[in-house]
């Protein structure tokens, strides 16, 4: 049992905005009161619900591919020295699994969503997720280039497509579905891309990126999955892609959808030389459409490695950078690409990207619908979130940072004219309460009675980046994990997944496809439940 007393509590899900009150914890949950046990005096400190990352890449084949490709980063990264309670590891752009848990928890984040899992590699992802300590985790499977699904959409078999998706989610022990560059990866397998929403994709007559998006959004709603369709739009990173993004959002009217790393999809201009910010258009549309949520996918200047299922984009990025390129196409399902990258303030494109991420967070009115992410590690590493919080909370600091941009770049962006500053309450929404609601994890992102006792206690500091990168205490499932900025106690995180229902006949339909076009037996494909320890299984709510 634990009592946190005297702290100023920010709990937006319960409307609590900086109220000094006690938080009591028993058996890993928030309770109304406790009679004994330890008391933490949080007088003068700030209490937040534990952070929730709605979109990150921390485990599985593609991240592990990136780790293997970038020893030069590991050599300069923070080294985690083994101790009696901590495992050794490496931080940096793609931290090792144990280091990932320590870094997230060390910053006060206690739940993460691994946003891109090829079903064929789901076992691998779960093995890695199990090796990420402290944080709870869920995962999204990649469906928008799944050729079995596309064949069904081509044939107009919507019903069967829905059963297929339901089966795939359960087979991979996932929590939701992710669509990456719908149709584009299928085209990429022939060395092409899909940039037009209404043009059929390579090898199909009827299926277009647009039909995949609307088909999947409909399926997600029909299945009543807790999290909406998690969508990485077509034309990521391309100048002028704002039109694709807005057209895509129009296709989603009447459905729920989560627009992933919106920063990469809000550019104007015609080419790399004329690229500019188009955030007002995106924000205007987004503000008016409450069916949508999004995460920022913000960029910070510095070195990182880009990891995405968007193969054609990665080939383009490789050609632009001339550095290393990793690519792995996954049979019948998806692909992935890896390119190390450095964002530089004196580069026009990078400067626009940096500004666009911040502009979106400042121009979108409702903090509940826009979540703090960097699309780790694509825009920046997750352990740099405190730097973004500082940029959001301090307009003067932003102004200073703008000075490092070229005058040319400053003409292409809107950031210099934006004066909004986030409050602590709003920060608690974009880092915790909002993403928890978007992921439909009612026990997360809040400190009401019955909630999971995941919380973080900061020492308020004018230096916002310092405040958020060095929490005084982090409590996970009622256990004090971080004390005085040090990890003192390692608990295991839990996996979350969704139990879907489907017509068992779908297996009879799938089996022949498997035998012909896959290279493993059908029985070997699903992830066994025994691979997950202490899983929490959520039910679908049938919306329709």
């Amino acid at each position, binding site marked *: 049992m634990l009592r946190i007393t005297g702290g100023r509590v920010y709990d937006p899900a319960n409307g609590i905005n900086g109220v000094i009150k006690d938080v009591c914890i028993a058996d890993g949950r928030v309770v109304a009161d406790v009679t004994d046990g330890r008391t933490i005096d949080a007088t003068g400190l700030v209490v937040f619900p534990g952070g929730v990352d709605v979109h990150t890449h921390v485990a599985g084949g593609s991240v592990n591919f990136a780790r293997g*490709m970038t020893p030069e980063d590991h050599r300069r990264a923070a080294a985690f020295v083994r101790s009696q309670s901590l495992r050794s590891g490496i931080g940096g752009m793609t931290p090792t699994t144990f280091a990932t848990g320590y870094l997230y928890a060390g910053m006060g984040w206690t739940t993460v969503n691994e946003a891109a899992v090829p079903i064929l590699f789901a076992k691998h992802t779960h093995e890695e997720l199990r090796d990420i300590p402290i944080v709870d985790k869920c995962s999204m499977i990649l469906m928008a280039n799944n050729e079995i699904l596309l064949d069904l959409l081509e044939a107009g078999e919507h019903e069967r497509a829905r059963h297929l998706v339901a089966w795939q989610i359960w087979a991979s022990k996932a929590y939701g579905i992710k669509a990456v560059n719908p149709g584009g990866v299928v085209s990429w397998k022939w060395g092409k891309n899909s940039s037009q929403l209404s043009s059929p994709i390579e090898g199909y007559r009827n299926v277009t990126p647009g039909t995949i998006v609307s088909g999947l959004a409909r399926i997600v709603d029909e299945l009543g999955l807790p999290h909406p369709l998690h969508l990485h739009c077509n034309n990521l990173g391309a100048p002028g892609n704002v039109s694709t993004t807005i057209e895509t959002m129009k296709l989603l009217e009447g459905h729920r959808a989560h627009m992933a790393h919106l920063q990469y999809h809000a550019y104007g201009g015609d080419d790399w030389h004329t690229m500019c910010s188009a955030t007002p258009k995106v924000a205007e549309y987004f503000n008016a459409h409450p069916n949508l949520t999004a995460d920022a996918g913000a960029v910070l200047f510095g070195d990182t490695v880009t990891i995405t299922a968007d193969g054609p984009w990665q080939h383009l990025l490789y050609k632009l950078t001339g550095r290393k390129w990793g690519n792995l196409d996954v049979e019948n399902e998806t692909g992935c690409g890896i*390119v190390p990258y450095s964002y530089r303030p004196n580069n026009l494109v990078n400067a626009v990207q940096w500004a666009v991420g911040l502009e979106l967070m400042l121009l979108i009115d409702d903090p509940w619908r826009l979540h703090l992410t960097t699309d780790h590690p694509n825009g920046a590493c997750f352990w740099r979130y405190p730097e973004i919080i500082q940029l959001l909370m301090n307009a003067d600091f932003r102004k200073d940072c703008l000075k490092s941009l070229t005058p040319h770049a400053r003409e292409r962006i809107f950031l210099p004219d934006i004066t909004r500053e986030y409050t602590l309450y709003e920060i608690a929404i974009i880092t915790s309460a909002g993403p928890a609601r978007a992921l439909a994890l009612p026990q997360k992102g809040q400190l009401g009675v019955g909630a999971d006792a995941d919380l973080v206690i900061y020492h308020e500091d004018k230096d916002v980046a310092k405040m958020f990168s060095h929490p005084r205490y982090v409590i996970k499932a009622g256990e004090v994990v971080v004390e005085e900025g040090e990890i003192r106690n390692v608990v295991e995180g839990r996996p979350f997944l969704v139990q879907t229902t489907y017509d068992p006949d779908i297996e009879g339909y799938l089996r022949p496809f498997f035998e012909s076009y896959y290279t493993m037996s059908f029985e070997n494909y699903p992830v066994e439940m025994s691979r997950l320890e202490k899983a929490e299984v959520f039910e679908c709510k049938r919306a329709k």
Partner: protein
Amino acid sequence: MAAQLGGKVSCTLGEVKNRADFIVYWGSNPADCHPRHLSRYTIAQKGRFLPRGRKDRTVVVVDVRETKTSNPADVFLQIRPGKDFEVLTTLRALVKGQPVNPQLVAETGVTVEQLQDLVDRMKRARFGVMFFGMGLTMTRGKHMNSMAILTLATEMNAFTKFVAMPMRGHGNVTGADVVMRWTTSYPFAINFSRGYPRYNPGEFSTVDLLVRGDVDAALVLGADPGATMPMPAINRLAGIPTIVLDPKVTHTSRLARVHITTATTGISAPGTSYRMDEVPLTLRPPLRSPYPTDEEVVRRIHQAVARKPDWLTAHSGTSPIAQA
């Protein structure tokens, strides 16, 4: 290691089966060494986009001698031993339309015309794959040979879809590589002596450590270095306390101080195996074994070691330095 130098463009084997209309085997003889590879994934298979199977595929073999794999190939290029790097580098130039020196090319055993023909065919392919084996990776140039073929495949993507994939050896070597990466961020040749992972092939790789005599004890798991490593390395293994975990008697177990018999993974012990394209597969053992699994033995060794004083924090007492 080659992927660290310039990257790697690859795919899972099902992509090869369904799409690869152009298949190259370089320094690799799967007909003898990976007998099921050809029938399951490549030449003989009908694929989703290659309904006529073998008729829809062009097969090229590059090797220093004729093999069972080269016999049925559409194109066989016989190159001189140790000239793989020169040939691959020439191909990279030809792909880009750059000039090469015909006399020096001829020294590799093939002509510029033959290589130009290969490049033309590669560019005409819809989906090309280059498999490479120990004939490339373990001959003079080693990791640079691997990098050369990976880079060639990468650069071919400016013209058409191309991938490259190593034909990895026996057992679950890919699995070890995968797990080491997620726990340490490095695939092999990792040193933990400073309490965190450090990596440097040539410095920390097993064979180099043994040959130089940098280690004073060895634990061998799922490998038989006593059969494959150079003599100086084997002599070192025999001279230091070597512990072997293996289901059977091996060359290494014969020279080891301790041999712990373990259950055979996949037959009498469960686990996960990673295929050479890194696809994870569940192993379902059909039999039971009276012997413990490797995992159980390692865990018990670890528990026993954990009871000892921690060497990282232990106070430096008397110098344990040995006399030469």
